[in-house]
């Protein structure tokens, strides 16, 4: 069975190019991609994940407000019963040039499972997603 994943650009960000590429690539890789497009609120991500029974939410942010927009998504997921859902986030997540390791630490602390820069290799993202999904299933 195909895994369901939710995809979207969070907040008031309308960067649509990468979003269209992600949809295309993950559909080709065999996922059932529910693409919410640009300007997606945390609530819309969660509602879509519940409705579609998705096992991962992939959040993009390119415009610099990621730090404000992404805060609290993990807590809201837990509130809605999505205790195990994978949260991936990628893009230009903070205002200004910041080393990825520093950004990663910040977003891992916010409850995200994986953090990517704007030029992430999508084959690697796919590999990690497969591993993470397998780990969730085996209950580890």
């Amino acid at each position, binding site marked *: 069975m195909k895994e369901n994943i939710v995809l979207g650009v969070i907040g*008031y960000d309308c960067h649509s*190019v990468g979003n269209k590429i992600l949809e295309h690539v993950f559909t080709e890789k065999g996922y059932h991609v529910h693409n919410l*497009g640009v*300007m997606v609120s945390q609530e819309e991500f969660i509602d879509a994940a519940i409705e579609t029974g998705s096992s991962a939410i992939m959040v993009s942010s390119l415009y610099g*407000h990621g730090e*404000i927009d992404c805060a609290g998504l993990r807590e809201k997921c837990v509130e809605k019963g999505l205790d195990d859902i994978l949260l991936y986030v990628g893009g230009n997540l903070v205002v200004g*040039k*910041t080393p990825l390791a520093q950004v990663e630490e910040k977003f891992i602390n916010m409850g995200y499972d994986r953090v990517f820069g704007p*030029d992430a290799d999508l084959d690697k993202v796919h590999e990690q997603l497969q591993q993470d999904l397998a780990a969730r299933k085996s209950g580890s």
Partner: protein
Amino acid sequence: MNPGKMELNAFLKEREAVLKTWPTGEGVSLQEAVDYQSQIPKEKNFALAMERAHEEGRTLLQPRAGVALVDEHIKLLTWLENEGAADLLPTTIDAYTRQNRYEEAQNGINRSIHAHTSLLNGFPAVNHGLHACRQVVEAVKSPIQVRHGTPDARLLAEITLAGGFTSYEGGGISYNIPYAKKVPLETSMAHWRYVDRLVGWYEEQGIHINREPFGPLTGTLVPPFVALTVAVIEGIAALRQGVKSITLGYGQGGNLVQDVAAMYALRELAAEYFQRENLGDYSLTTVFHQWMGGFPEDEAKAFAVITWGATVGRFARADKIIVKTPHEAMGIPTKEANAAGLLASRQAINMLTDQILPVGPTFRKEIDLIKAEVSCIMDSIYELGLGDVEEGVVAAVASGILDVPFAPASCNHGKLLPMRDDQGFIRVYNWGKVPMSEEIKAFHLERLRQRAQSEGRSVSFQMVTDDIYAISKGKLVGRPR
């Protein structure tokens, strides 16, 4: 039907409602604004600066910049004019304000004060209000423009123009299709008719204000004919409301011949269509945007992209170039990086000051192709609008006749698929519903087949993806790895 110039009474009635949408709108008086604008020195007027540059054949440089707090924003702008030698200054507006989310913008201001750093990607001018705008305008020496991406920019225009800004970017199409998700096109066009009418009103009082439709659209493999069609229509819409100083723009595509040809075609098309619409008494200038797509992360490589953009913009005889920074791949730049982009661009255009690119038959062929492509779309738009472009463009976008690639707006068809040919020209692979002549379609297809052949693979979506990331990975054409 041609909507014509908005009736003053209808404008003033709408204005009352606009000013009530956020508390900082309430004190804005048109008469007081004219008094304030009248005492701004001529050398700080944006429209006059553009016209002077055009007459003297100079190319002005302008960065993008904006942060959450007033003092920090002033520091940033004065740095860019003093250290970066910017000719023209911007005030880039944050993304919450662009969507009229003033409460979220306030939260961003508060959190930025607390964090001692800007957590917003621009200057929230509506929240700061008219007096803060005047503080900014008075603190700098150069003409200053509002740059944003706001589908409903009426209140922002009221506050910033009363606040002393003398140029305003945007348009009903170019600030909807690339910048919104669910705004109907007729709504954003009506809201921008208001903005243009406001500028037209200032012109009636003798206050010269520049208007600049946003040329690059999605900044991603946009074929020149798409960008130019939008530019011409937004130019017509602005002039109809009494705008006198109009700057039309185009974003660098990457191929020298195509980019120079597009800028020449833009000037010719604007003059031709404005004349067809009986629009006179305007000054037309142009802006060239350095590469708007993905940038290399390495700063040395980014400088190469920046200076190539400056070179092409100068060869294309742009009156103004919008400059990128070596931090582009990582998001919002520091003030130092922003100034560095300006200095690199300055060196390039200064070395070209006395050089003229001979625009011979190779260029002329491409100029004529672009003009023929625009004609195909414009003919359909006039037909759909029963002779009127503003009416026709709404139907044309809905039916995919005018189609912007990779755009977020649901009013956009999104079926047109562009890719590069073997020499890096942006051509069209899938036309969607765009009514192009068979001859032109055959030409594009032939060019794409040449590329497919030289790469030993068939024309496919993979080429589009490869093209989108090519420059950030060090090339123009996305060749197979």
